[in-house]
């Protein structure tokens, strides 16, 4: 995809899909260092979403 293409904005939808359906991730197991899946899964999405936004920035900063 070319730098500056409007299609990069579609990346903004990925975190919505990943986090707005608690039925997918509302479980205690698997735990990570004692933290239930429900919690570490969402904390993981903080990082994924930040990376996606950084990619959008790199691709769209001159728009």
């Amino acid at each position, binding site marked *: 995809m070319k730098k500056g293409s409007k299609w990069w904005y579609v990346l*903004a939808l990925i975190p*919505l899909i990943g*986090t*707005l359906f*608690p039925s997918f991730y509302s479980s205690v197991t698997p735990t990570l260092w004692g933290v239930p899946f429900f*919690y570490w899964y969402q904390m993981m999405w903080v990082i994924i979403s*930040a990376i996606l936004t950084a990619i959008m*920035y790199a691709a769209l900063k001159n728009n």
Partner: protein
Amino acid sequence: MNWTALVIFIIFFLLVTVLGFVAARWRKADLNHLEEWGLAGRKFGTLITWFLVGGDLYTAYTFIAVPALMYGAGALGFYAVPYTIIIYPIFFAILPRFWSVAKKHGYVTASDFIEGRFGDKTLALAIAVTGIVATMPYIALQLTGMQAVLAAMGLGGDWPLIIAFVILALYTYTSGLRAPAMIAVVKDLMIYITVIVAIIVIPMKLHGFGHIFSAASAALATHTPPGAPVATPSMYAPYATLALGSALALFLYPHSLTGILSSSSRRVIKRNMALLPAYSFALGIIALLGFMALAAGIVTKNTSAAVPLLFLKEFPSWFAGFGFAAIAIGALVPAAIMSIAASNLFTRNIYKAYFNKSASPQNEAKVAKFVSLIVKVGALVFILGFPQQYAISMQQVGGILVLQTLPAIIFGLYTRWFHRRALLLGWAVGILYGIYMWGTTGYKSTTYALHIFGQTWAGYAGIWALIVNVLVTVVFTLIFQAVKLGQGTDATSASDYSIEPSA
């Protein structure tokens, strides 16, 4: 009375008070001009914008209200995490357009934009009033946060809170937006230190995360109604709609837009959308303090006291005092920005639009300074008028109102298809329906069970009201276009939304 904590608290509080007054000299300019007092001259770069917008978004809501909900009800409180996950990518796309058009036309508020875009003074007034009213409960939430830490140190009653707010009012009056911007830097350093220490020390004392979660689950099970350690199926819809609704509402709040408008370029905003998630990680950790309080055996009826009591129990007094100062300053910064934003709205879109059309920038600044004082009194009234079990509902109530401005502001940034009168009708229906839904719960909860086609949908009233709002707006746009009702004039042009000034 906890003297050690109190002394440390007062030292840091005095430090930021001095900073608040010194801020008037920072990047010296004529503070008797509204763009200087209320937007700091639109000159903030990436770093200051990061602190300022961070100070806007991560407030007493984060440090007191979110852990309080975790402490009282369990997993539901964690909705604040997906809320702050989805905000930034969405607004990465939207806010640069707003910044550009505002810079080009000298807009200070969202209502300025609405009036320019739709040529409709009534719609602009509706947006301005909504912004001001929605801000009151949010400032009240900051007051609750301060009250919680003051009470934990043994300072009960109203007078310490009033003193703190008088100090805040005075330096906001003299320094304008420069004061919270400068204080936000100190606030964040203190918050990050507190969070890092908390995430290391408390789990060590409480035998690790595994034990914290199992002890918290056991404690939640004894609550009435029982709290849930992870989301249960009946919570899925409220959880998701609260996260989505809060995210969409956030940058419609006047204070968030003030932070955005004070930045110096489109690129500063985009860069910030990529950098602000650093706070979201801290937010997730702070939310879990609610569970740590449960695991530490903190018992209190006032859920807002959960985190302060946890600090007192697990930290030495001096560090608890430091943490309390961090929380209290974390409430002052947004309260200052909120009152500035609300007074910008009043000055531009009520005073100038209706009472003194030829007001000079100096005159505007004078009125704005005065109104910033009134707004704080309004917040005090709100806190006395609507006692809530969970302080977090104050933020959610503001969200119901401010969400109803979404069609005009956000759709308006992209299209002029929607009719100005239809937007006004949609707004009115949305506000009334939203307040009605909140009222059916006895003004206690913002979750409303909608019954459609024999199915029950429990969710955030703000989202339900917004859906109705959009439906009404679309239907009446079609009707008004059919009867060719006047469209008003558009003062903006398509290119205004994507300009980056060369400077």
